[in-house]
């Protein structure tokens, strides 16, 4: 663990340390809900994806969706966590308009996944290990719409019963940055293994953020829980605001009241949640409609075998076997789609050139990160929608290695490929962009340039070395940039 930078909140009484723990709710990727056969899909008409079970009709009973169990186990394995072959569902009892049963089926005492850990990248080679306390399966609630009617709240139960994994961290984070990086890393892992799509805008990943402050070395302070924060940026903003608020209260001689708060992204503030103000007493007890959740080693082995290479392992492979820089490797593994693209590109280049992976990896990585990502970012496209396929990219890069076009021309060719979807070879052919390496042709041009610029030639020969670039530029201009730079350099030195 390496945390050089210590984040503090400056107060009149000195520096305050902040302590952050997160409960991330991640929607399990599944067709059907955790305990019913209704669709778990997002965005349906109100109450369309609702079974009689989800609406808590009298006499309705839950039946567990095995895929959700499998996804929880895969996620636990990806977090290097303890997997509990015996776990149990409990009821968490409370009344709320969007909680039709009057209880949430969750796992309280015996979660399916126990302790694990996540190594979080903080940039500049800094990392931090954040402990995972547990992961459990539970039902999502429905959705309350408060702004559709002046004195009514509307309730849509489409989300009611959708499977969630609640991933609880230890209170290991000490800065907004660490918390943001933790959420990002968690999201990366979930998306790698396909147990959650990580789509925070649609609410498939939300964080409850627990924040407290203390003077370094003091015991933990009273914490406040900020509910349902739905973006990485908001997580960081909420922590920053909340820590400041708590420090100000304490320094004014006040006490922190343990409470549930809401983050208002428009104002960048947290505020007390009126509906959750009263003390909770959830009266957890084992759900008598369900039996304990049990599985065997074979189930776990299968789950393990279904896991792809995880981002940490991939990063090590990219740096150690492929020789990429730590930065480039981090960028490429951050999203599984990016890493997949890069690896597909690499395979295509190897196939096309017959060279070893390590020989071509650096070039491929640079091209993906600067050229491809640059264009994707500009057009706001996802890598899955890239108009240039890995094979197309490999063809372009091969033209450079083969000396057919220069790196400079390649950028123009790529621009056209990106716009038109045409192949690199076709564009080069069509526009006559092949590099000119014919020494005779270039020599003739150089002779003309020397003859046409006697002043500069004299100055150069008189010791003004910088003018060399002027001559290179003239040759390039005359060839429309197509002259092979190495040949130009060599010939110019000879002639001058």
């Amino acid at each position, binding site marked *: 663990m390496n945390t050089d930078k210590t984040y503090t909140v400056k107060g009149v009484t000195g520096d305050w340390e902040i302590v952050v723990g997160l409960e991330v709710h991640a929607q399990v990727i599944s067709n*059907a809900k955790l305990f019913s*056969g209704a669709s778990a899909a997002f965005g349906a008409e109100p109450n369309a994806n609702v079974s009689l079970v989800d609406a808590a009709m009298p006499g309705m009973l839950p039946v567990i969706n095995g895929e959700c169990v499998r996804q929880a186990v895969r996620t636990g394995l990806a977090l290097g966590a303890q997997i509990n072959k015996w776990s149990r569902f409990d009821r968490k009892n409370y009344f709320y308009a969007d909680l039709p049963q009057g209880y949430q089926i969750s796992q309280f005492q015996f979660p399916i996944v126990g302790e694990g850990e996540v190594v979080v990248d903080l940039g500049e080679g800094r990392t931090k290990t954040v402990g995972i306390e547990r992961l459990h399966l539970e039902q999502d609630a429905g959705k309350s719409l408060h702004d559709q009617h002046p*004195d009514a709240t509307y309730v849509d139960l489409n989300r009611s019963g959708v499977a969630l994994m609640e991933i609880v961290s230890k209170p290991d984070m000490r800065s907004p940055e660490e918390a943001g990086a933790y959420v990002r890393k968690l999201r990366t892992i979930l998306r790698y293994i396909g147990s959650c799509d990580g789509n925070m805008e649609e609410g498939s990943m939300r964080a409850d953020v627990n924040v407290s402050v203390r003077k370094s070395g003091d015991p933990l302070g009273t914490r406040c829980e900020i509910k349902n924060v739905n973006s990485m940026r908001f997580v960081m903003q909420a922590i920053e605001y909340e820590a400041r608020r708590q420090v100000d209260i304490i320094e004014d001689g006040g006490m922190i009241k343990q409470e549930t708060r809401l983050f208002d992204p428009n104002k960048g503030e947290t505020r007390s949640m009126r509906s959750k103000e009263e003390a909770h007493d959830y009266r957890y007890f084992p759900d008598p409609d369900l039996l304990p959740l049990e599985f065997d080693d074979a189930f776990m082995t299968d789950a393990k075998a279904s896991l792809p290479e995880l981002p940490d392992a991939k990063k090590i492979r990219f740096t150690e076997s492929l020789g990429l820089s730590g930065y480039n490797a981090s960028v490429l593994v951050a999203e599984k789609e990016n890493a997949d693209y890069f690896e597909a590109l690499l395979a295509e280049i190897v196939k096309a050139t017959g060279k070893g992976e390590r020989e071509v990896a650096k070039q491929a990585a640079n091209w993906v990160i600067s050229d491809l990502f640059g264009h994707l970012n500009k057009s706001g496209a996802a890598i899955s929608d890239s108009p240039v396929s890995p094979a197309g990219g490999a063809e372009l890069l091969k033209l450079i290695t083969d000396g057919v076009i220069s790196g400079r021309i390649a950028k123009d060719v790529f621009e056209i490929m990106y716009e038109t979807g045409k192949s690199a070879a076709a564009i080069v052919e069509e526009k006559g962009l092949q590099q000119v390496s014919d020494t005779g042709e270039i020599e003739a041009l150089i002779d003309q340039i020397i003859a046409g610029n006697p002043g500069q030639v004299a100055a150069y020969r008189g010791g003004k070395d910088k003018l060399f670039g002027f001559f290179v530029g003239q040759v390039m201009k005359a060839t429309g940039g197509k002259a092979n730079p190495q040949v130009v350099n060599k010939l110019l030195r000879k002639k001058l």
Partner: protein
Amino acid sequence: MSVDKDTVRRIAHLARVQVAEEKLDALAGEMNNILDWVEQLNELDVTDVEPMTSAVETTLHWREDKVTDGNKAEDVLANAPDAEYGFFSVPKVIE
């Protein structure tokens, strides 16, 4: 363990059952009668006994991940005391 008026008031609110103030004492009495009686269980030492998880030995049946239900908003809303535009409607909640 004895239940007093305040406890009954708190429990009644937890259970979302309105109880008239003048009925709290009587209810506390009834609850205490029952609780005193069930406390005979304390005669038993159950330290090493596993709590029952199910009356009969069987294993949990797992459902396949298939969409087999839903698309019955009309059935879901059919008995609703108040429903509008496909939603259940309740008194305004302020978060």
